[in-house]
């Protein structure tokens, strides 16, 4: 085994891999935040909770769940309150189904949230959007903690990706390779859809000037709703991919979202590609820090944020406000 900077290459590369994995999640999440911010002009604080929902959706699709069904009793002794009967539902759908269904489910809840709440905040200070989504994040997290506790639930790596391969300098588990490749693919597809397609051009135009785009006969409110649904769906997708790596836990999103905020501040939300690149780059930096200076691995991204604010306040890819 050869060494780099006095460290076994094995350790270096495995931390780099872990960094790339984290980086894929940072990229996917900050991408979603940037898409939502562009259209709705709010920062979606519940993004972490929705990422957690994605992971839980995968877990529940596989392991089943108890659906509460209200039952109205009949006859003379009928009470006004329905009795709650729990019906066990066991879809038994595996990882690959979850990869398709979970983002759709989470995206649908996002559409409901947009229609019910966020729609009413259009003309208010964007800070209210932040406060509202923060409240939603607390509600979602609290509900899941009530039902599933705070400890993690295990989720198996799908059978097809259980093996790994020796690359000569390190061991590469197939699932981790898959996460990196697939999230890169999703990021690039999203970038392509926004920057290179007709629908994306409507989206960018509506970001710049919604009134004018409406005048051209495009249903901007519906576009806003769908954008929120898709941004949130991306968070859900990240959650599904994270489930086999980290445990599925109600708390998995709350600390992550703060790091993602720092990533967004570093990259600036002006550009989609910027969000993707910053996400991956910071994941790698974090991984390297874990090798050379483990005590700082929790804080390195925040320190980088402070330095970027000093040197380039608008962020690396940001336009000046």
């Amino acid at each position, binding site marked *: 085994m050869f060494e780099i900077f006095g460290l076994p290459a094995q350790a270096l590369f495995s931390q780099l891999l872990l960094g790339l994995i984290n980086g894929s999640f940072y990229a996917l999440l900050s991408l979603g935040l940037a898409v939502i911010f562009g259209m709705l002009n709010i920062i979606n604080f519940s993004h972490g909770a929705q990422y957690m929902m994605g992971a839980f959706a995968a877990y529940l699709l596989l392991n089943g769940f108890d659906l509460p069904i209200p039952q109205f009793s009949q006859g003379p002794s009928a009470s006004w309150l329905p009795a709650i009967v729990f019906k066990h539902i066991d879809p038994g759908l595996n990882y690959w189904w979850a990869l398709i269904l979970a983002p759709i489910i989470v995206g649908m809840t996002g559409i409901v949230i947009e229609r019910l709440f966020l729609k009413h905040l259009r003309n208010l200070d964007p800070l209210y959007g932040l406060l509202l989504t923060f409240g939603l994040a607390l*509600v979602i997290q609290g509900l899941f*903690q009530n039902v599933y506790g705070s400890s993690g639930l295990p989720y198996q790596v799908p059978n097809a990706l259980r093996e790994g391969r020796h690359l000569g300098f390190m061991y590469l588990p197939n699932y981790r390779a898959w996460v990196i490749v697939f999230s890169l693919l999703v990021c690039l597809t999203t970038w392509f859809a926004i920057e290179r397609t007709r629908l994306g051009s409507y989206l960018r135009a509506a970001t710049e000037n919604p009134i004018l785009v409406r005048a051209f006969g495009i249903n901007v409110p519906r576009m806003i709703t769908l954008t929120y649904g898709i941004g949130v769906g991306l968070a859900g997708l990240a959650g599904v991919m994270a489930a086999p790596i980290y445990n599925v836990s109600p708390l998995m999103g709350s600390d992550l979202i703060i790091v993602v905020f720092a990533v967004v501040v570093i990259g600036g939300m002006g550009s989609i590609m910027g969000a993707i690149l910053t996400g991956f780059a910071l994941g790698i930096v974090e991984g390297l820090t874990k090798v050379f200076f483990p005590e700082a691995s929790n804080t390195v991204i925040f320190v980088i944020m402070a330095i970027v604010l000093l040197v380039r306040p608008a962020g690396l890819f940001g336009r000046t406000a």
Partner: protein
Amino acid sequence: MERVLKPALLSRRRETPRSLVVAFAATVMLLAVAPFVVYPVFLMKALCFALFACAFNLLIGYVGLLSFGHAMFFGWASYLAAHAAKVWALPPELAVVVGTATAAILGIIAGGLAIRRQGIYFAMITLALAQMMYFFALQAKFTGGEDGIQGVPRGRLFGLFDLSHEMTMYACILVVVLGGFLVIYRIINSPFGEVLKAIRENEPRTVSLGYKTERYKLVAFVLSATFAGLAGSLNALVFQLASLTDVHWTMSGDVVLMTLLGGLGTVFGPLIGAFVIVAMENYLAPFGQWVLVIQGAIFVVCVLVFRRGIVGEIAHGLRVQL
């Protein structure tokens, strides 16, 4: 666009509106009688949080800056105050000074970084910096990690008053918190405070009038951090404990909620909000995570239909300033 706040009443009157004088007198009387009726430790906790929320309100209510990281000032002040009282064996008044000074220094650094961006970015930056300070607290030796600093001695105030008596401690907290409340009120209604409100209403125009708004924002941020630190130091003495809870982001969320529920930019709102939320957390504690759900729901309701907050609605209904 509706702003975070209604435009300030640009009254030329020098004297304080009568509604505020009456409300303050009523508050003082209530708080003087309260410890004979309600558990004093609960009241002291609520008072510390009231001061914390007032400090936070100074920033959101009068400069329009939403800080999501005020737990770092509260928590780190409480760590340093606890450490000073326990390890350095300083008297309580000096321990509080040490804690408050820590928060002020942190405020200069965090504020200097955060005011480089506006609006939503400001909130995210303060949150991220606070998370960094949380990890520092988790890793530093003197903070005691998960255990925190326990068994902090309350000591004797000025060598005279034994603070281990609940009533003496309560009187002391009451005086300091009301003092802080009055100082914050004075700051808001000073010429300096008027410039802050101008920044809130229209920053570019304030710049064009020749004010160096960056400096004003930084001073306001440091003042807010300092008072948050004062609240944190007092809290450490009351509970004889400084722990990770005090620096966690949930604490930052709590103070935002208190101020929002009480009424952003109102004088008494943070006070009322703090009492309501502390009472709620107290009584709902046995119900586990439902507290989180209810807090979140309050956020949602406040933002959607109740943006003036409790005190704001009352003041609006009675057409007075509160």
